[in-house]
């Protein structure tokens, strides 16, 4: 590829005590792509996400984001990087003492000349874009269902129109209709805003519908990356099992029907 990678990981090692989760892990994320990260339970998908967004410092390796060495960045550089990231946690991780609208307004507050009304209006827009009824803005997170909290989490992650969003299992726990709306939303935003999406998921339908490229985590590293059709060719036993299992076939058939 001739483009510069927006995130590039080299030689990452993560370990908890004596339990090594990642060893010598390399990964590049290209601008504007939707990268799906898959892997069995306990292969450290969420750990990888937390490492990239700076919540966890790896024991070894280097992380470069937007051309900045993220592990040795100064505090201002780190804040600048964080502002260009949006993260949606598994359960939304909304601030429970704020309403949904106030949650979405939190990142918008860093922009000094945005008036209160404008900020509220933009928050309402993000809430409604993420597929929530805009009335939900007045609710507290505890009053929402799990799926709605995820959407509110996405609305907050997108509040500043970040360049990269990290989504941790965005469609887990959503009903199929909601999940496929979510896929469409992510795909659409990625195209229209040039948004780069780093997606941790188990949902094969989401992988089919949204991801440009898939990275498989296994054996403590990124085993392979490639498009969906390339994945079907890989003959590593786990990868084969994953992409050729009964659920995978159903997802492929569903994809073929819609195309």
């Amino acid at each position, binding site marked *: 590829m001739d483009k510069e990678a927006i995130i590039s990981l080299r030689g990452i090692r993560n370990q908890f005590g004596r339990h090594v989760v990642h060893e010598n892990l390399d990964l590049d994320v290209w601008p504007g792509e939707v990268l799906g990260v898959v892997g069995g339970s306990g292969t450290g998908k969420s750990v990888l996400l937390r490492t990239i967004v700076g919540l966890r410092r790896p024991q070894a390796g280097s992380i470069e984001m937007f051309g900045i060495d993220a592990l040795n960045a100064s505090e201002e550089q780190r804040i600048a990087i964080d502002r260009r990231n949006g993260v949606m946690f598994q359960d939304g991780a909304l601030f*429970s*003492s704020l309403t949904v609208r106030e949650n979405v307004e939190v990142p*918008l507050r860093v*922009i*000094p*000349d*945005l*008036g209160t009304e*404008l900020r509220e*209006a*933009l928050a*309402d*827009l*993000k*809430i*409604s*874009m993420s597929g929530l009824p*805009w009335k939900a803005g007045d609710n*507290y*997170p*505890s009053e929402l269902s799990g799926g709605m909290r995820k959407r509110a989490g996405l609305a907050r992650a*997108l509040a*500043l*129109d970040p360049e990269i969003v990290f989504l941790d299992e965005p469609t887990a726990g959503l009903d199929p209709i909601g999940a496929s709306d979510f896929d469409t939303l992510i795909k*659409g*935003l990625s*195209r*229209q*805003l*040039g948004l780069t999406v780093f997606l941790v998921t188990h949902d094969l339908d989401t992988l089919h519908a949204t991801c440009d490229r898939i990275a498989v985590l296994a054996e403590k590293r990124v085993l392979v990356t490639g498009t969906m059709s390339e994945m079907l060719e890989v003959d590593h036993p786990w990868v084969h099992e994953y992409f050729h299992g009964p659920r995978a076939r159903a997802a492929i058939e569903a994809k073929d029907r819609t195309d």
Partner: protein
Amino acid sequence: MSQAAEALGDIRISEDGGWRELALSGALTVRTLGRLQPELEALSPADTRIDLAGVDRIDTAGAWAIAKLQQRLSEAGSRSELQGAAEAHAQLLETVRTSLPDIMPETVRPKSWNDRLEALGRRIASAGVFAAEMSGYLGIFLARLGRSLFHPREFRLTALVHHCQEVGLRAVPIVSLMAFLIGVVLAFQGSAQLRQFGAEVFVVDLIAISILRELGILLTAIIVAGRTASAFTAAIGSMKMREEIDAMRTLGIDPAMALFVPRILALLLMLPILGLIANVMGLLGGGIMSWIELGISPAMFTTRLVQDTAISHLVVGMVKAPVFALIIGIVGCHAGMKVGSNAESLGRMTSSAVVTAIFAVIVTDAMFSVFFAQIGY
């Protein structure tokens, strides 16, 4: 800053055969919108052509501003056209337009006297409900305690021992220090006053009666209320918040049996012991201080203490301990169960548990005082 180019969002307005030309250029993003939006809002309704050819960056906030402008113009009966938009920009505009929330104005009714009266009534009623719930929790505790006599297998001995350690053993240093210092203060202040009458030796009676009868147990209860009521509320409340209590119920475990009984029982066992330790330490502090300040030797202090202090003072003090323990434990557990599903309510209930427990302990102590004065004990 690398995003300096973004600051260059610009609007140019010109007229062209009845149409107003609105040429937007540069970056139309959330960062430039604060400056651009007032200009867009100031536009009077007129047929408008919005030219986006010069726009090189647009985000959802910029798209929102354009969509909002078009909405406003069409509501005023004017036409608006978009031109020169790149395909991705046009798609983004379409996405934003379809999800544009239609905000209805809210009507805020001013607070009337009726509302205030209603709020007052609700608060009084909720105080009544609170009192009823307290006695309900006391009932649950006693019922489960009674049940565990007949079904000893359901009783959680390990938990009881653990809580005894947390509530009792861990509180010994702070309670001892507090009581020791109170004894010192009493001896010091008492000797200064009594010396005026030449009645220094009565400082022993002063210390003994005030510590054994009131201060030892009351101050211990207050410290334990601060330490333990908050700990109970926080522990039970965070379990409530994460639906662990609901999980217990579905697994057939009775939360009252598993959580309340060991905690309250531990308090019931430990508070008298802590009170006793406080009494001893208070007398020790008072004794040392009267030796230093008044030259009352330890032997003389002990003699006067044993001769002149009726055992009833100690009894009056210790009788209150189990009552205080029940109050603190029940208030703590009740507040824990009242925690909702957000972190804020956990904090609110924890501090309210401490305040309620301390307040209730002091009120009860006052009632005990009146009671013992009436019966002349």
